[in-house]
């Protein structure tokens, strides 16, 4: 059973001229609009812009340009997290403080996607400034999970995950700082890839924690993730942290067996999930067994410092965000609260009204961690632990080609379940944060269901080994086809 087409399926149809770009875009817009009352995945839909561009593309195809010459994503409708600047269009980052912001430039990855022929149909909802794991920290409204609209889609890239999970678009862009692509991908039964830090340009992507933020694809399958990453990856002279190394051919690395592949199973992670949730632990055990059946050798590896990942992350990320978000002061763009008094009063009132609670919480945390007298004890210490975590992965990868581990500790939870307990929410990223701190690539791929709710399996690989990682995940996906086994309930609801 197939709930929606992938980008490569749409692409084939467009190449064969069975489908026009306009038709693909209309179908995506129809679906997004029909599901919007239930899911609220979009902050902004861009129907006119999308139709114009689809028409231009169709005109070119009609004039005889081959779909191939128009780019790898020619005519494919995509959604973009509202963290990516899109020239002339509302770009809010899920925050009131940017509630009216229209950037005069586009993010590099957005430009790359459009240059490859992709048609952006809308900007998706997210936790404010990407701070959150449920999409409930959006300043505007929460997004819902297509598998159960009483549950969260995950976050912070919740809108992107929800709309891809519901089948409205085959591809969406997300960003991942501590798990913001992988956790919602797991919750919405899709593929989500966080590339190596430096693999993809951050220019035009609104910063949360600069040393951790990475953009990545959220797709219906691994093949589409490979194609999208191919388009996104590469050096950008506008981003000095983007690395100037060749981008391998990801599609060529997709494989269907795992003969000779050593998969590391992280002892500490298995202990943790075994203690907390038997159903989840059982699901992952079955996934590892599937890998073995495909020819992989399972190797026990250790990440002794991974348990400190969360604490480390919640010093480094807030520290960076406290500085990154200082620019939102009402002086130049975005919202301004200027009732009376001097410019500093304007700053205070603007920031008080413009930021939500979680953002304020992290700015305060980070300001504290960087303060004189605390800097060494918190920020510097956290950077040292970060180095140890990175070293743990180096040691692990000396024994295996890739790591397989849980993406999340539970299936999607109900709205409001964790909003009163920030630490419980932070714990959602327990299995994803260590890879973020180490800067290595990781992805989540559908791995089955617990109580009919989707759960993802995480793969991680050494830095810049996305090809290897995608190849292994592809073999697993093609052997299991978990994503196609349960349809999102929201589609049944919409049909009724």
């Amino acid at each position: 059973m197939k709930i929606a087409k992938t980008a490569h399926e749409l692409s084939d149809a467009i190449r064969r001229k069975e489908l026009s770009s306009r038709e693909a875009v209309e179908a995506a817009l129809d679906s997004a609009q029909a599901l919007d009352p239930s899911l609220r995945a979009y902050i902004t839909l861009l129907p006119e812009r999308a139709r114009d561009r689809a028409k231009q593309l169709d005109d070119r195809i009609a004039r005889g340009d081959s779909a191939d010459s128009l780019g790898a994503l020619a005519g494919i409708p995509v959604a973009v997290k509202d963290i990516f600047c899109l020239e002339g269009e509302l770009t809010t980052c899920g925050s009131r403080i940017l509630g009216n912001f229209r950037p005069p430039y586009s993010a590099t990855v957005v430009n790359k996607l459009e240059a490859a022929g992709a048609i952006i149909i809308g900007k998706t909802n997210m936790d404010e400034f990407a701070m959150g794991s449920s999409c409930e920290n959006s300043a505007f409204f929460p997004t819902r999970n297509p598998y159960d609209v009483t549950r969260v889609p995950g976050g912070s890239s919740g809108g992107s995950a929800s709309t891809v999970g519901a089948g409205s678009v085959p591809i969406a862009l997300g960003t991942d700082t501590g798990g913001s692509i992988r956790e919602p991908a797991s919750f919405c039964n899709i593929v989500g890839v966080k590339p190596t830090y430096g693999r993809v340009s951050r220019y035009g992507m609104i910063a949360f924690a600069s040393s951790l933020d990475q953009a990545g694809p959220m797709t219906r399958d691994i093949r589409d993730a490979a194609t999208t990453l191919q388009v996104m990856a590469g050096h950008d002279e506008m981003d000095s942290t983007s690395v100037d190394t060749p981008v391998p051919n990801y599609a060529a690395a997709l494989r269907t067996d795992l003969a000779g592949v050593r998969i590391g199973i992280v002892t500490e992670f298995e202990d943790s999930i075994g203690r907390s949730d038997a159903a989840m632990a059982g699901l992952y055990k079955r996934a590892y067994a599937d890998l073995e059946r495909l020819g992989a050798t399972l190797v026990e590896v250790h990440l002794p410092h991974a348990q400190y990942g969360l604490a480390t992350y919640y010093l480094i990320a807030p520290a960076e965000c406290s500085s990154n978000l200082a620019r939102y002061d009402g002086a130049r763009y975005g919202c301004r609260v200027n009732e009376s008094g001097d410019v500093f009063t304007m700053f205070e009132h603007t920031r008080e009204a413009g930021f939500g609670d979680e953002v304020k919480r992290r700015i305060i945390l980070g300001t504290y961690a960087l303060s004189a007298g605390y800097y060494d004890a918190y920020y510097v210490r956290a950077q040292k632990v970060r180095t140890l975590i990175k070293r743990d992965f180096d040691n692990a990868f000396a024994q295996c080609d890739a790591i397989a581990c849980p993406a999340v500790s539970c299936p999607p939870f109900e709205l409001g379940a964790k909003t009163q307990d920030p630490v419980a929410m932070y714990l959602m990223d327990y299995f994803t944060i260590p890879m973020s701190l180490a800067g290595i690539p990781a992805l989540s791929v559908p791995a089955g269901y617990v109580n009919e709710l989707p759960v993802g399996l995480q793969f991680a690989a050494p830095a810049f080994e996305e090809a290897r990682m995608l190849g292994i995940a592809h073999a697993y996906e093609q052997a299991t086809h978990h994503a196609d086994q349960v349809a999102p309930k929201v589609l049944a609801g919409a049909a009724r």
Partner: protein
Amino acid sequence: MIETRLQFEAVIGLEVHVELATQSKMFCGCRNAFGAKPNTLTCPVCLGMPGTLPVINRRAVEYLCKTGLALDCAIAQFSKFDRKNYFYPDMPKNYQISQYDMPLTTGGVVPLASGKPVRLNRIHLEEDTGKNIHAGGHMAASEYTLIDYNRAGVPLMEIVSEPEIASPEEAEEYLVALKAVLSYIGVSDVKMHEGSLRCDANVSVRPRGATELGTKAEVKNMNSFRSVVRALRFEIERQTELLALGERVIQETRNWDDTRGITYSTRSKEQAHDYRYFPDPDLVPMTIDAQVIEAWRTELPELPLAKRDRLVREYGLSEYEAGILSEDRATADFFEQAARASSEAKQVANWMLGDIRRFLEKHEKTLATAAIKPEQLAELIALVKSGHISGKAAKEVCELLVTEGGDPRAIVQARGLAQVSDSAAVSQIVDEAIAGNQESVTAYKAGKAKALEFIVGQIMKASRGKANVDMVRALLKERLG
């Protein structure tokens, strides 16, 4: 009281901010220029807009390192940028990208003309801020403030001296020496009035001979070398008086008020500022190859003090003359070109330090903006030497060269300034003068030497200054002798 004051000594350290004369800004491609229409030299990056990222201007790093090499600093093989966090509306990101604990250079020395070396602590690279323009001039009194971000992101290097400067005059000497080096290597316009060179001073006073430093005040807002000297004199006086009275100096920031001639406490909370420095995660650390550093070293020009010594040696100038002529590279180059073209080095120096300087001031020009070329000065000197024009006429030609330039010979021709040196013509004028001034002739013959000068004066008047005065005098003596 005066005796008490003599028991104290001042200790001054200077922080000099220098805008680097790169084509583009420190972290974006915007043009780096002074005086453009407000907010026309800006882009999303230097306006700190969401999602934008800085990219290091390599040329700025090169300029700073060359400055370091010229001042004998150690160039860091590994350096990084940090964020200095504080809220201020002229700073688009509300943090400044600067360098905290790993500056591009450490150590170094600025040799003063007197021979005293002032050691440097460090030179680091940062971005300049925008400019607040308060309606009404003062922030507190103004109804609104306009911000010009043209300057935001201009590369700025901060040169920090050790506290080794002993007097306001020495501080000026330091600034003159530093400015000379910077102008030589061409890394900055070093114009204090345009803000491309700015200076803050840390001033403290202590009992003479003490080894510990006294409590310092940081003096800001000094906009010329003269105001630096005045501000430091005032501040040292103020602190000395406090200490002499047994009172304490408060550590604070004080602004110089040029009109009132005083420093006053800014009462800012600056002391309480915690800048929360941390490494800028948007930039990767810099490693500078030793070979690149050596290449930069070979590109350095001859520096001011070396040039001064060579001018003394090669052209026989006094140390004073050579010192002034080598203060900036354009002047020194002008001198050397003119001296080579005329082989009258001493005359070239005299003209440059005398009349040319005067005419430049009168017409508010510099050698760079004036029309005169070294070859023209050489030619002018040759015209005087050959007796072609009088010294007086030469001054007139010189002023024209400064304002309009041109071929000195052609100017002399066009203005009819040529000196009459033809002996037949001169003797005719002399004979006419003798015939017309018999009274003076008689007086001279009677022994009144002054009378001869009267006749000379009459001749010069009659010839409208063009007669060769030496020839006139010699002929008169011959005829009347």
